[in-house]
């Protein structure tokens, strides 16, 4: 009979307990939410005007924030992936900072920069532009928090493209810009799209920076996470309905990013591997 040594057995037991503990910690709150809310009830709650306004605002601002992060992040990701320069490590750390910073701190920073008395805000107020407590402020706060997710994924995608393809493009008379749009971007497209989607998902869930920098004005700056927080004190059922919607939305985005290969290049890469 095969015997398992005591040490191996102990290792397996510890691993199993740790895995079970983590799953319990992660799954139970989600399960609790889903079990608590009857489906018919959720639909009814979500169609309330105040709740619906939050959903609409969240979708609008998060899509804008993801687009902003993508447009501004693409050149940065390209530079980080293809160039070596002094201070690159520092730049990478600065770009990743919002991922670990408490979002409320990010909000305070945004206020000091773009607030009425802020560094850039004062200049903007001279031309009659005031950002805080507007929908634009929500987009800026969300983009601030979400951008690192895009830059990280896109830069990793660019790094995976073998230099030989860019070199081939260069010897075929392609300027660096042509090589970027016709070779690098198409080949890294799965990662770029995954990065954009992840930054969108992060933007939808943003709370701390938004409430600090943009405030909590229903219809203007009150996104879904903010609405959940407010509803928790007055209308628990509405809070649960919004929470369930957020959970499902986030879960679907994550599953899509993981499971679906984006773009023809990824499909072929998979076929080659298989």
């Amino acid at each position, binding site marked *: 009979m095969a015997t398992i040594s005591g040490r191996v057995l102990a290792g397996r037991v510890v691993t199993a307990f740790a895995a079970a503990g983590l799953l319990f910690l992660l799954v139970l709150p989600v399960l609790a939410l889903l079990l608590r809310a009857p489906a018919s009830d959720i639909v009814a709650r979500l169609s309330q005007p105040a709740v619906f306004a939050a959903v609409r605002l969240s979708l609008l601002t998060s899509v804008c924030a993801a687009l902003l992060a993508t447009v501004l992040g693409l050149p940065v990701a390209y530079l980080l992936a293809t160039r070596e320069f002094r201070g690159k490590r520092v730049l990478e750390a600065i770009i990743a900072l919002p991922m670990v910073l408490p979002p409320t701190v990010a909000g305070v920073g945004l206020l000091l920069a773009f607030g009425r008395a802020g560094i850039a805000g004062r200049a903007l107020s001279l031309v009659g532009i005031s950002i805080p407590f507007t929908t634009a402020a929500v987009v800026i706060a969300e983009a601030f928090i979400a951008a690192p997710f895009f830059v990280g994924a896109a830069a990793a995608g660019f790094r995976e493209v*073998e230099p030989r393809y860019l070199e081939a*493009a260069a010897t*075929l008379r392609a300027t660096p810009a042509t090589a970027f749009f016709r070779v690098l971007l198409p080949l890294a497209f799965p990662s770029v799209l995954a990065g954009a989607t992840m930054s969108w998902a992060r933007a939808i869930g943003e709370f701390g920076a938004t409430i600090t920098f943009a405030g909590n004005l229903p219809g203007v700056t009150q996104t879904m996470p903010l609405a959940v927080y407010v509803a928790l004190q007055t209308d628990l059922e509405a809070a649960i309905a919004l929470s369930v919607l957020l959970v499902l939305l986030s879960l679907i985005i994550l599953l899509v990013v993981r499971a679906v290969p984006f773009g023809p290049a990824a499909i072929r890469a998979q076929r080659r591997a298989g």
Partner: protein
Amino acid sequence: MLSAELVKRLGGLSLSARLDIDAGSTLALVGESGAGKTTVLRLLAGLADPDQGRIALDGHTWFDRAGGISLPAWQREVGYLSQDYALFPHLSVFENVAFGLRALGTERSVLRQQVEAMLFRFHLQALTTRQPDQLSGGQQQRVALARALVLEPRLLLLDEPLSALDLKTRRSVRSELRRTLMALPSATVYVTHNPMEALFFGDRIAVLESGRVTQNGVPDDLLRHPRTPYVAEFMGVNLLQGTIAAAEAGGLVRVRTPFGSVVAADPGDVGEVLVALNPREITLHLTPPTGSAQNVFFGPIVELVPEPPFGERFRVALATSPPLVAEVTRHAVETLRLREGLEVHAAFKATGLVPYR
């Protein structure tokens, strides 16, 4: 024509080479891995810059360290085939071939016409819509060539273009590629580590050893007058280096080598010379030969390998001093019962040896 002086330090490599190639001709660049062959191509293509030197093509300066000129790759009229061809995996055969023309902003109807002519020339019409991973190795190579040649480069750089192919494909692709290269107006550099390919493709052959060009000449020159032990081995002959010491009777001279002396034909010259020796000129004997061979060396057989076709001949490596390679008939192997480890006398005549400088 291309004229290039390239100096580059890269990792453990210290490259310092001068290359001149006439328009319409092919230079075979040979050498062991790490000798700097691929580096030369990358410098010429503009994928890396030399530390010092100059690259000029038909009077246009592509690179000049002293003059501060360095055209980026995309401004050089160069075609570059890397070893694995690097076809764009996300583009069809047609789009791969059209890539360069699109980058140049060629007008749509002209582009279609030129790409189709190129696809026709390389027998790719039936594969237009295929993706690169649906092509055989030989087809991929033709697409890579078509993709480069549609731009009519002034300089074509081929990095071991046959090494990614299996043996069977290689033979048919080889003849086709030679016909293509012979019809090209551009200067071509063909990098290989295979002697047969170098002789097959090169109008001239340049040998690169540890970053230096040790010999540059027409194939006959390298075959008959190898200048370094590596070139001699590459061309399959024995090479002795020595000094002409004394005249002998009958139009012969004695050449002193670090391993003892050999008798050779008098080249009418004195001083340092090289002597190339065809392996077939060497005969093997179990006892000291008494015939007309003036040169005899003694040592054990270290390798005994039958040669195609049919193993009619055997290649015999000898640990004599100097080490020699002989080529003998199967009959000789069987009658003398040659085997590895057996000690033999290797003999060759003086008349077959013509020293050169």
